[in-house]
């Protein structure tokens, strides 16, 4: 599996990272190096092995249905780069 420039561009868009055209080649090379290296996992026989998503063996904790949070718009908005009238603002989205 080899990454080309177009794939790096596509992955960059999926991750919303602007990548200058001149960096694509180098990045593709670098990422291919890493992907080639992790390729070694294909050697491991994992037939019948269940994937491990978490090492945690506890039961998921369920909380009660009680309102315990919220009602603090000033804190929610305290770090906002752009806001007005209690809203966050972003460049206009056209759907």
């Amino acid at each position, binding site marked *: 599996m080899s990454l080309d420039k177009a794939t790096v561009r596509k992955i960059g868009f999926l991750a919303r990272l602007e990548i200058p055209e001149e960096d694509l080649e180098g990045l593709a090379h670098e990422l291919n190096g890493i992907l080639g290296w992790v390729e070694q996992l294909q050697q491991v026989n994992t037939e019948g092995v269940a994937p491990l*998503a*978490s090492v945690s063996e506890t039961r998921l904790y369920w909380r009660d249905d009680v309102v315990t949070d919220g*009602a603090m*718009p000033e804190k*929610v*908005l305290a770090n906002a780069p752009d806001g*007005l009238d209690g809203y*966050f603002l972003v*460049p206009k989205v*056209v759907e």
Partner: protein
Amino acid sequence: MSSYIIEGETGPWEVVIGLEVHAQVISAAKLFSGASATFGGDPNTHVAFLDCGMPGMLPVINAECVRQAVKTGLGLNAQINRRSVFDRKNYFYADLPLGYQISQFAHPIVGEGTVILDMKDGTSREVGIERLHLEIDAGKSLHDQHPSKSFIDLNRAGVALMEIVSKPDMRSPEEAGAYLKKLRAILRYLETCDGNMEEGSMRADVNVSVRHPGEPLRTRCEIKNVNSVRFVMQAIEYEAARHVEVYEQGGIIEQETRLFDSAKGTTRPMRSKEFAHDYRYFPDPDLLPLEFTQEFVDEIKAGLPELPDAKKARFIGDYGLTPYDAGVLVAEKETAAYFEAAAEGHDAKAVANWVMGDLFAALNRTGKSIAESPVAPENIGRLVDLIKDGTISGRIAKDVFEIMVETGGEPGRIVEEKGLKQVTDTGAIEKVVDEVIAANPDKAAEVKAGKEKLLGWFVGQAMKASQGKANPGILNEMIRKKLLG
């Protein structure tokens, strides 16, 4: 009842419809945060730090939302998965603060089930449920507040949704409408979603494709976020016709997401589709699998209310209602409850007619819901009794009912106070009849000469003269006897 066929130049086309309904779970707090799940509020006031995606914030599941999902699954006769997994659905959007939606992809909490549709002609149809999963809602973007900015309110972000996915089992806009209504009824009976489409607590994504009958499925288009039963039906109609037109002109339909324009009744492609989505689902490492015991499920099952289908069967069996009437009465939980309260100890069929006829009309006219009905259910029963025992005629009953709507009064008392009791005293009736005949000698002569049609006119006049109180049976017979011997 799948006779919705579009006749094209290349032959008949069948429409294939599947619905993904997003139903907001009734709960006090959000699915993974302790902020209020209440609709509305000032912007960003129902927002915990998790809901606005602050660094280091973690989700903790709300037990009630789990119960509600299981309850809904049971109401849909569906398989309950005692182990399910929350995944992250990754994409960027201004009202998606985490950069991903916590949802369930490979292992939903509820599996396959069924919904039975009651069609207008009294027949029923089964629609398969593919799955139901729990997920969080996004925030709200307002695009019309500012020339160059969109406004983001995260009050809704994180509210629990159940996504209920049907199989592509529907074949007409009517069936899709019936499915939505039935699903909403079930959710309302269960009290797991308020079904309020105006406030967005129930929204549908509609998948539409067409095919010649017998063909395999063709490419579908998904119409996003349609928010009323009527719009869903309109959108399907438009979209199906569009597909047929494209195919018949030799074109191809591309799989895409579209938006419904309710003003024009049309659909159009969404703009942001330059890149196909790649959601990169993977198990949310902040959460563990959601697991519960069979006892937990059984306990919920034991507490389930009677659902529309069971209630309908009971109304048919116990009250002798027609399937259609029973279907109408169970469609809303409140209506069914009203009917049962009204019918208790009275002629149920007559009560059903009053509820579906005059009461519905009055509510419609006054813009009130059945819960706000000025007429108490037991008074409908009493009214029916007054007719049945001959105290008032059916005609007078209509007047009494209008007074009940206006004043909320008890029918017996209204009849008493207004002196509306039916006159059955033959002497009194004879007196009125004689007066009417005496006043109209020409017409009486015509009847006697064989123009029997005019009998009805005499009955009407006499009834009017008795202010409607004369017993119609006695009156009829007396006029016939007097004029025809």
